[in-house]
């Protein structure tokens, strides 16, 4: 997650002085260290009294771990930590890429209907999953919902692309409108399903919509992690192109940026990362908007540093939010979407207030 190479783009843009970029790059180190601290803390914090120190000590003495220690660390906290890191990075980077692509600081994967499509997939699986023939159900079983969410995310991306692309040219404005339509459509179908759902399914839907990393397991990670890794790594190479795009598509093309190809790559990365993240963790909001924003405030808008910083800070933020959700009502658990909303919404409002009159939104 952390070992992303930073493609050194030659300075083609005059917008960011070198020293500012260097400062933004120095943030990499700070954020990476923060991430390591947060990760260690997350392994040692939880409802059970299992402590990382004790485990490390008994390992050093060559003692066997108790069954409890092994299950808590290996089957609960570690997969959750990895999932938190992956989902946080995926959401934050997707947000940063979208904002660069649409040249709008309020863009978010939710805006192009990818999240809505993924959500629709999940709802379909929750409500109609019980109608499947038992043989199929046995095969898909517990992983039906994430699988369906992922498929929903991909299908909506392909649809969007078909609608917005004419003769190899992708229109961002058309895509934005198509995304809104797609979101409305997904919302309508979800509404029908909610109407059909019974009491217990409704509760499942509610919990799914609030998001949670509680379902973290190695099986789920095996499906989602490769996709997230590939797409987040792919997105980190978009820095230079996104900087150029800030000057407008025509200008970027004159500079020699392959605009169409780069837009396609960006959309694929966002769809993959968001689809996979929504699939394994449900609806987690605000990460994609708040993280890139804070970083832009801290160290400027240069995407060459911003994308990697977003991945680091997004991962750290989500792991912290997950820790809070795990202990605040222990032994029960608060859905993480509530925590990110409580942390994120005020920050988001504060950003809006700051920007009023500065940026025309």
């Amino acid at each position, binding site marked *: 997650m952390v070992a992303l190479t930073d493609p050194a783009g030659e300075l083609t843009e005059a917008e960011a002085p070198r020293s500012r970029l260097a400062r933004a790059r120095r943030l990499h180190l700070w954020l990476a260290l923060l991430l390591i601290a947060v990760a260690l803390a997350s392994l040692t914090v939880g409802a059970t009294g299992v402590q990382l120190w004790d485990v490390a000590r008994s390992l050093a003495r060559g003692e066997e771990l108790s069954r409890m220690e092994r299950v808590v660390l290996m089957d609960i906290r570690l997969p959750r930590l990895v999932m938190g890191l992956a989902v946080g990075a995926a959401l934050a980077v997707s947000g940063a890429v979208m904002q660069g692509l649409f040249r709008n600081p309020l863009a978010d994967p939710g805006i192009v209907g990818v999240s809505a499509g993924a959500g629709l997939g999940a709802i379909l699986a929750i409500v109609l999953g019980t109608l499947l023939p038992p043989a199929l159900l046995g095969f898909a079983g*517990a992983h039906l919902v994430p699988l369906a969410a992922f498929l929903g995310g991909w299908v909506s991306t392909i649809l969007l692309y078909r609608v917005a692309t004419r003769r190899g040219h992708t229109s961002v404005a058309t895509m934005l409108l198509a995304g809104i339509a797609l979101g409305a459509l997904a919302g309508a179908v979800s509404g029908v399903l909610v109407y059909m759902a019974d*009491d217990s399914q409704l509760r499942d839907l509610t919990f799914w919509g609030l998001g949670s990393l509680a379902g973290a397991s190695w099986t789920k990670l095996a499906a989602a992690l490769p996709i997230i890794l590939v797409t987040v790594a792919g997105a980190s190479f978009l820095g230079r192109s996104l900087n150029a795009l800030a000057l407008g598509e025509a200008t970027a093309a004159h500079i020699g940026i392959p605009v169409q190809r780069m837009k396609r790559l960006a959309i694929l990365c966002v769809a993959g990362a968001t689809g996979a993240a929504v699939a394994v963790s449900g609806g987690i909001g605000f990460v994609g908007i708040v993280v890139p924003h804070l970083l832009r405030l801290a160290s400027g808008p240069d995407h060459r540093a911003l994308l990697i910083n977003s991945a680091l800070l997004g991962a750290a933020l989500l792991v912290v939010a997950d820790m809070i959700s795990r202990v605040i009502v222990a*032994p029960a658990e608060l859905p993480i979407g509530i925590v990110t909303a409580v942390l994120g919404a005020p920050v988001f409002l504060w950003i809006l207030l700051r920007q009023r009159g500065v940026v025309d939104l």
Partner: protein
Amino acid sequence: MKRRSFHALALSTAAYLALGGLGAALLPAEAARGEADTLAIGGSLTEIVYALGQEHRLLARDTTSTYPPEAEALPDVGYMRALSPEGVLSVNPDLILSEEGAGPPETLEVLEEAAIPFITVPGGFDADAVAAKIRAVGEALDVPEAASTLAEEVSAEIETASAEAQAAADTPKRVLFVLSAQGGRLMGGGDNTGAGAIIEMAGGINALAGVEGYKPLSDEAVTAAAPDVILMMDREGDHAASAEELFALPALAVTPAAETGALIKMDGLKLLGFGPRTGAAVAELAQALYGG
């Protein structure tokens, strides 16, 4: 650079310690354990454990376990369909008794991995099902004789209450169970629900017979169901809707129930839990429907 690295390192160490300390501070203190070794998931099972006099075995409960009141002092592991794996492990149970439908599946997988015995007690909506539940709990807690006695008592009580209710119901009333009336949209209980079963036991006719499960109802469906009585759960939130507000809804305004203002409110767990209090619930509902 050196100094900066040192600063960053100091900062991250501080972050680690602060977060760890925060986590420790938020956690509830270890409770005294004694003989307690069981986690009960599902309100009716918790009630049964108390009715068997085995409450000293209870370590923790889920959100639906609200009776008897002293059960609420036990740690709450959350809603039964959204259990946190580490939360469940943290109460350190040697046995988990659960109603059907606990989840999510990932949590159950982890519990299986941790080798904690997990007993799912089958549910059902009649006297036999309640008796079977009680026997299963007794078996799990190693008090089969007490459970057998209690099961016979409880099922006999349900049968008696039901027979008395049928006798009292010379003209059976049509009863509509309203699960919620959020924003004027009614959610009703049809066939194969605890609500439908208990209405029939108490000598009523489920006004939504033919509808499967709990379903949101269109206004016309409510009117067509023509209930003589509305039955609701007595709890906070929109369930505290007064009879006046409820019968002002267009869907209900033209029903026979609105003319007489017939609204019965009962404790949700008592009414729908199918546990030791089901006999009393049938009697209470019949009394409310048909008087002494």
